[in-house]
């Protein structure tokens, strides 16, 4: 099956010429098929924001690729995953989230995810692999948190299915997804099977890109003053195809508008009012300055 494209690749197509006769929908579609290359390179990429593109090593999220978001004990993985969904969904691609019953959907909307293009399968249960495989056939991006007992063979099959169906598979391996995880997460100790670098991942297969949040801080909040603001974090990406194979990118979520510069999240004199002494704040440089 040829993958249907959601992003209209040729919005400037001369409509008038085609529509002169009594061309019906089928005829238009056949003309459309004949007059364009088999697969456009830009069709293969789902748009993402520039800092994320830097992480991925490609200008966008490549269809058919598998991106694993590892847990590292530092929170931020869920927001990062949602930020990755923002670009594709707002450009009209369908996204599905599997096995993430506690996903904060307001946060998703704030991070730019178009909720009318998002479908949730919160409790796939033991049919996880079957559900993800089915969704890869129809959706453009599937974000899934695999169960702890996912066999390597199943993971390989899902990655192959994503490749074959030209859908991007995001594996939210580091996200605390369910209630018991959250309760255990409160003392700040990730479960033994996940999280800490060096422990086996929930995704036993290789992936094009592995992302993990290695550092982060919370700006804007002090002891009894302020409130949580944008979250600066440092993300390390291990890429299989791009060079260099490992990059570290500092970004702030929600992603500020391009070109804006975040200088500090601590108000003047904030240290006396109980703000943390030296929150890690990185400036977001305009894209042209990079």
């Amino acid at each position, binding site marked *: 099956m040829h993958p249907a494209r959601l992003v209209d690749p040729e919005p400037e197509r001369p409509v008038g010429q085609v529509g002169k006769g009594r061309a019906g929908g089928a005829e238009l579609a056949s003309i459309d098929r004949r007059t364009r290359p088999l697969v456009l390179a830009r069709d293969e990429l789902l748009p993402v924001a520039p800092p994320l593109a830097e992480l991925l090593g490609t200008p966008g999220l490549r269809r058919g690729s598998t991106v694993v978001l590892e847990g590292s004990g530092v*929170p931020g*993985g869920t927001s990062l995953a949602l930020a990755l969904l923002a670009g594709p969904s707002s450009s*009209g691609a369908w996204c599905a989230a599997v096995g993430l019953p506690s*996903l904060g959907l*307001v946060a998703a909307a704030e991070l730019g995810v178009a909720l009318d293009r998002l479908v949730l*399968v919160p*409790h796939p249960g033991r*049919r996880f692999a079957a559900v993800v495989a089915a969704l890869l*056939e*129809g959706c453009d991006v599937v974000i899934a948190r695999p169960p702890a007992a996912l066999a390597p063979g199943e993971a390989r099959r899902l990655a192959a299915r994503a490749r074959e169906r030209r859908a991007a598979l995001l594996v939210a391996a580091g996200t605390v997804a369910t209630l018991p995880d959250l309760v255990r997460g409160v003392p700040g100790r990730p479960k033994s099977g996940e999280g800490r670098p060096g422990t086996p991942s929930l995704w036993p297969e290789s992936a094009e890109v592995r992302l993990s949040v290695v550092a982060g801080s919370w700006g804007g909040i002090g002891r009894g003053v302020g409130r949580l603001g944008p979250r600066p974090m440092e993300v390390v990406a291990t890429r299989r195809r791009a060079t260099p194979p490992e990059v570290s990118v500092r970004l702030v979520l929600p992603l500020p508008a391009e070109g804006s510069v975040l200088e500090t999240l601590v108000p003047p004199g904030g240290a006396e009012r109980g703000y943390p002494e030296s929150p890690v704040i990185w400036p977001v440089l305009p894209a042209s300055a990079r």
Partner: protein
Amino acid sequence: MSARPHRTLVVWCPDWPVSAAGRAPEQAVAIVAGQRIVAASAAAREVGVAPGQRRRQAEACCPELAVLARDVGGEIRAFEPVVRALEAFGAPVAVRRAGWAALRTRGPARYFGGEAALAGAVAAAVANALPALARAPIGDPVPPLLTGPWWRVGIADGPFAATMAAQRGVVVPAGRAASFLAPFGVEALGRPELAELLRRLGISTLGGLASLDEADVLARFGPDGARAQRLAKGLDERPLQGRPPTPDLAVVTELDPPAERVDAVAFVAKGLAEALCGQLAERGLACTLLEVEVETGDGGHFSRLWGNDGAWTPALVAERLRWQLEAWLVGRPSDGPPDGPGGPHPGEAQGRAEAGIAAVRLVPVEVVPDRGRQLKLWGRSHAADERVARVLARVQGMLGYDGAVRPVLAGGRGPAERVRLVPFGDPVPDATGAAGLPWPGRLPSPSPAIVPADPPLVGVFDAGGAEVAVDGRGTPSAPPASIATSGGEPVTIVAWAGPWPVDERWWDGTGHRRRARLQVVTATGEAYLLALERGAWLVEGRYD
């Protein structure tokens, strides 16, 4: 003019607005609309309250009078069960207003073996239709109880005579309407001005009016008077505008012997779906929610709801049925029902495939007028939407209709209540209006990226180890210093903000909720949104 009026059965509920408001006739109740009494209970009428009076007059007559505002919609809704009960008799039911319904007796009377028997059956059905209203009847119940505390049943020639018969709770034999009506006063015609004039002219009963010469009546009182005279003579030829009974659109097919193979059932289902689609198309309807029910040879049941925005084709229905059956057959005990609330895979249907499938039933649960669908000119994105819909229908086949949902932003203050999940295929409610309104007290962006459906409890302690409380003014008893889950070690809080109190729906006894929200950052670098409600701290969300 025409032939004899049709034999008509009338169910009349006196003072229906009072009954619909849930008041008994023995209570002094009046219903007002625009300061005028429109209906009064029997008890109120006894002491002089009458429809048409001003509210003040009525209250002067009866100081203990309970005055209720009229709720026309509620009256009609309350009457609907009565109409349904009447529709069961198979004849078109005419409803002129809430509290008055009529049907022609010709067919049903023959079925029940006589009009008296029919009237008794109707009275019983009406009494059953609204058990809440059917209190102990006043007076002694006579076996064919045609009158109850709030209903009257009568049969006569034509709706007018039948209404009068219903007031008395009698069956007037055919052709005897005129003599039955003769003793009634002219007010019964429901034309107050004409009645007043007739009284002044010395004609006080319907019999008197009926005995006048028709030409004279027409000359003196005009066409309206002539019509009134025909009514008085028992010649009510106004046709009953009946509402045809709601058609049963469900289609069913039985397989004998039971089919063992999924494709055999799917093949049968396709024919069945064709019949259903044809029926719907004939009536100009589109089905938005379809229930596919499968019965196994040994009596097992397995049904599932399928949503679609209105374009069911036989192939689509057959496909859904095939997925449904496959999901069910595959659902062997070893594979098990999916754990979690999203996977309602009926356990009782499992492992019973050996018995075969004996019947397939398609029930259109929700139908809407078919307005057609407008496809986009450039069909590609539509094709993608259709592909997604097919894939999700398959997922719903595996996990149940609620297994795949779409999020819709709704109005609210907490991160959980700002999102509503709608099963994929259901029309998305337009809640964006409420989401865009200002919600004072709502926490600004960023929102927690993890919002547990069932917030876990957590303890919040101050430096001395005492639990932190928040007073009515939103001030914490002490700065929070650590949090701990039950059984977990406490974790130090390095930063916190709030608490922000929210007092929601204070006007609503059941929905009233007071919360105080607190953002905390722990020494381990994690941030949480906590909420204090009824003395217990909950983890409402985790910033992740």
